[in-house]
């Protein structure tokens, strides 16, 4: 019948009124992010609090926006020291390619999504400052040991 659509529309909005709001009062209430949500890049640390980064530069090469920058100092004994691990979050598109490129699981896409700042300078993060990079040898040695405890001794560096 002509005009029933109007009544249907009114019924829908009235039903909505009865349902109550679905709003999440954001600053006070927060929804849990999906596990695979990709937000600002963050370094990962091992159990003793040392960065897992080996300063291999894989992420820096993978970044399509050229916003990751590792400033590394290599010592006499070839051990690396990370002076700065810079990250320009304002230009980051959260693609996650750096995380995919990382062979040592040393960075992750964090769930830190409240990235707004009042000072543009604050958009330049320094992920790691003046720390010793993890040794890739040790990392390679520990990885099979942790994942395959029954594996035969030795290892790549033995």
């Amino acid at each position, binding site marked *: 019948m002509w005009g029933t659509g109007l009544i249907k529309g009114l019924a829908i909005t*009235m039903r909505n009124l009865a349902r109550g709001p679905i709003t999440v009062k954001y600053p006070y209430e927060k929804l849990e992010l999906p596990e695979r949500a990709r937000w600002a890049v963050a370094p990962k640390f091992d159990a003793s609090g040392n960065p897992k980064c080996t300063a291999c530069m894989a992420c820096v090469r993978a970044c399509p926006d050229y916003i990751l920058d590792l400033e590394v100092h290599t010592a006499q004994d070839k051990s690396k020291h990370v002076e700065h691990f810079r990250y320009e979050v304002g230009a980051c598109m959260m693609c996650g390619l750096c995380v995919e490129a990382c062979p040592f699981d040393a960075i992750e896409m964090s769930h830190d999504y409240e990235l707004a700042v009042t000072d543009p300078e604050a958009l330049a993060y320094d992920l790691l400052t003046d720390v010793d990079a993890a040794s890739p040898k040790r990392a390679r040695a520990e990885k099979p040991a942790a994942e395959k405890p029954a594996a035969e001794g030795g290892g790549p560096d033995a």
Partner: protein
Amino acid sequence: MSPALVIVLRILAALGLMLANGVVLIYMLRKVLGHLHLRLGPVHVGPKGVFQTTMDVLKLLSKEDVWPSGVDRALFYLAPMVVFVPSLMAYAALAFSETWRITDLATGLLYTFAVLSIVPIGILMAGWASANKWSLLGGMRAAAQQIAYEVPLLLSVLPVVMIVGSLNLGDVVLAQDGMWLGFLPKWFVLPQLPAFVLFAVAGLVELNQTPFDMSEAESELVSGFATEYSAMKFGLLFLSEFSNSFVISALGVTLFFGGWLVPWVSSEAIQPIAPVVFMIKVYIGIFVMMWIRGTFPRVRIDQLMQLGWKWLIPASLGWIMVTGLVMKLWQLGPQVVG
């Protein structure tokens, strides 16, 4: 008390009612629209956000009054008043109860429609004076639609006036006292349902209410005739809009829903709380308007004009004829049958 003082006090009472209505209705609109859309509406200022409009009014009062270059200064200054004053005047004839009314006008209904018909002139002035194409379009639309829809609005209330035989809004209410068949409230909405539908549609257009808010049309015209207005001049335009919706709702309640009367309660018993009953009914009417506003999208201007001239006016004329014929036959009844 001197008569002059009484008059001044009554005008102040009307002004107070209008301002209080504005504050309450804006809050109510935001809450009702919010909940219709599964949102919350204002929540921050005060418990459940009840002081939001109070803060908005304070903000409007303290804001800079911007005069855009190129405006027609005299008209730009006058327009909000030309919109606001008739809205205030429209309260004069409303009958809140048998004794609660600002004036007891014999031509109350005609007077209310007459003063409300000044509003589009003010809106057109506002649109013209703003020197802004959107404002001008909004003003022209408002004038066109409000003038076009005054005809069906007036024609739609005519059957009720024919039945009552009076334009006094108090008399209209008293004529609805009693019962039909012993249990149906003698409200005019029952025999005059088509007239009520016509009144509701024409009233919504007259109020520039969604789905007929061509003059504001936020998505196309920014804010229509009010675009260039700021501070309290905008406040007056805005307030008058809400005040008009109160007046039209009050007219609807008076003409079709028995004013301050409650069904199955005698009019003497209801007398002490009559104004409260009236206000509750008016607010229910306003809620329905907001419900419609939160549901329907805007119609096009040509659809609106077609609806007005091609459907509503012929329909209301036809319904007047039907009512007149039935009334005449009712009077002649004994002669025809006997």
